[in-house]
């Protein structure tokens, strides 16, 4: 009933402790029963990548990488994945808040629905998007009739496909962060006169920022690698809808070496971006 516990005073000294000089008991040896599976896990994830490095056509690498077609696909991928992440943030964070902080009928059902794009094959997602947003789709036919707007075969369709498959990662991550956040801070804000919107924007959001960041990274990475829904819903046209994964797939049909080069470029760029972001967050928090 009451929040306090008798030993709270001892447990939470408020005296500031200089960071980095905290003396911790020395950790014991790392147990092999954890190390062995962990190393196996890393190898499992990294070895296919090593295979690509070995097979890559290094002598012609420079020329292949700077091919305007490659750069166009790379630019399209990076820009659409970023836009998709922004859209996912705008829609996904409020959705996560609703799921974590409110009670409404069918909330569990909605939460299950959010994970649907994770479960179904992306190609099915692409077909579903066509059926709804295509030129003859449930909604798409009115977009076409009223606004002359057709989505398939446009970069917007690429973004939509990416949002569809990637947003669940963001929603799940942010909802988890919201559930883990100490709600008493929100109560404190309310006692200071903050309405729910203010509490959300000024207190809750800053508190769950790391969770949002992690979710956005997952979302961006998933959007960057998106293939099935994109090729089905947005089609494949160089410079317009052909993202890197599509370019990789097409190259694979004719020139596997070119596919390896494209894959390595995609991998390298995403690693650089993710490492930079991570660095920034780790330093910030």
């Amino acid at each position, binding site marked *: 009933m009451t929040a306090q516990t008798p030993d709270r005073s001892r447990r939470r000294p408020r005296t500031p402790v200089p960071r980095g000089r905290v003396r911790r008991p020395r950790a014991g040896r790392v147990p092999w029963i954890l190390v062995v599976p962990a190393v196996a896990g890393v190898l499992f994830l990294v070895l296919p990548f090593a295979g690509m490095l070995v097979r890559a056509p290094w002598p012609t690498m420079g020329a292949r990488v700077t091919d305007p077609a490659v750069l166009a696909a790379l630019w399209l991928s990076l820009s659409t994945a970023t836009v998709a992440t922004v859209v996912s943030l705008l829609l996904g964070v409020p959705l996560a808040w609703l799921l974590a902080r409110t009670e409404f009928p069918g909330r569990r059902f909605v939460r299950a629905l959010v994970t649907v794009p994770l479960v179904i*094959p992306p*190609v*099915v997602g692409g*077909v579903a998007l*066509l*059926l709804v947003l*295509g*030129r*003859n789709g449930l909604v798409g036919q009115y977009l076409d009739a009223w606004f002359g707007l057709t989505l*398939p*075969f446009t970069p917007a369709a690429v973004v939509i496909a990416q949002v569809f498959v990637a947003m669940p990662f963001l929603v799940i991550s942010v909802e988890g962060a919201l559930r883990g956040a100490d709600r008493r801070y929100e109560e404190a804000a309310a006692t200071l006169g903050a309405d729910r919107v203010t509490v959300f924007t000024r207190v809750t959001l800053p508190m769950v920022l790391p969770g949002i960041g992690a979710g956005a990274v997952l979302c961006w990475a998933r959007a960057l690698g998106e293939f099935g829904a994109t*090729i*089905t819903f*947005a*089609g*494949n*046209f*160089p410079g317009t*809808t*052909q993202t890197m994964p*599509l370019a990789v*797939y*097409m*190259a*694979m*049909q*004719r020139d*596997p070496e070119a596919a390896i080069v494209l894959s390595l470029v995609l991998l390298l760029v995403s690693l650089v971006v993710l490492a930079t972001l991570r660095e920034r967050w780790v330093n910030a928090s």
Partner: protein
Amino acid sequence: MRDSSPRRAGRRGHRPLTGLAAVAALGVALTACGAEDTGPGDGADTFGDALSGELTVFAAASLTDVFAEIADDFQERHPDVAVTFNFAGSSELAQQINAGAPADVFAAANTATMEQVVEGEGLDADWAGEHGEHGLVFATNTLRIAVPPDNPAGIGDLADLAGDGVQAAFCAEEVPCGAATTTAVGASGLEITPVTYEEDVRAVLTKVELGEVDAGLVYSTDVISAEGRVEGLEFPEAEEAVNDYPIGVLANSGDSALAAAWIEAVTSAEGAAVLTGAGFGAP
């Protein structure tokens, strides 16, 4: 996506199928060792023989239905033979074969991919000596302009695809139907820019069926398989890009006699009838 149509299992289904094929091929290898001693003397003398063992056929996705039908007939004649298929895009199959995937027969949707295999893993020398070093062409396929049944853009010939505001879907140049498309369009001298280069002919067909594009270039077999959901228009330039389907016994086949028997069945009169019924042309 994995709907009831077995053709759909084509490209994306190839991985689990490869696994199955590997298991099946292991069986082939084992039984082949035993069969070696009593091996049939002559590849031509296969009908009526008590053929047995397991046969693994790697075939272009567009052959899914016809090969299944021929296999039914084949297995009726030879009850002790088990036929396993791996249907996928021709170039993927070629890569798998060259990477050592165990297969007895390769049926490609174009000569270029067969050539990749000829230069890679190779065809069975005896068989190739008799039937051709580049495989045996057993069927042809010709491009058609596929339009939705109501043909909203009023497409009549290839030139209509170059019209303003007409949305067309082509196969990507990297895949066989795309190469044929390029040849046909090139022969026409027209400048046609599609809205999308699809990853395979099925994807083009889907876009037409859903009405997302006004027209797409697909094969005559695809029009037949769409069962009325699209209409196929013949066009003269298609003759410039007739697609040959070569077939061959692979060098690392565990049972080349059985593989040769399969090819006999495909090229027989009965086999040709099945192919024609599905929209293929005679070689």
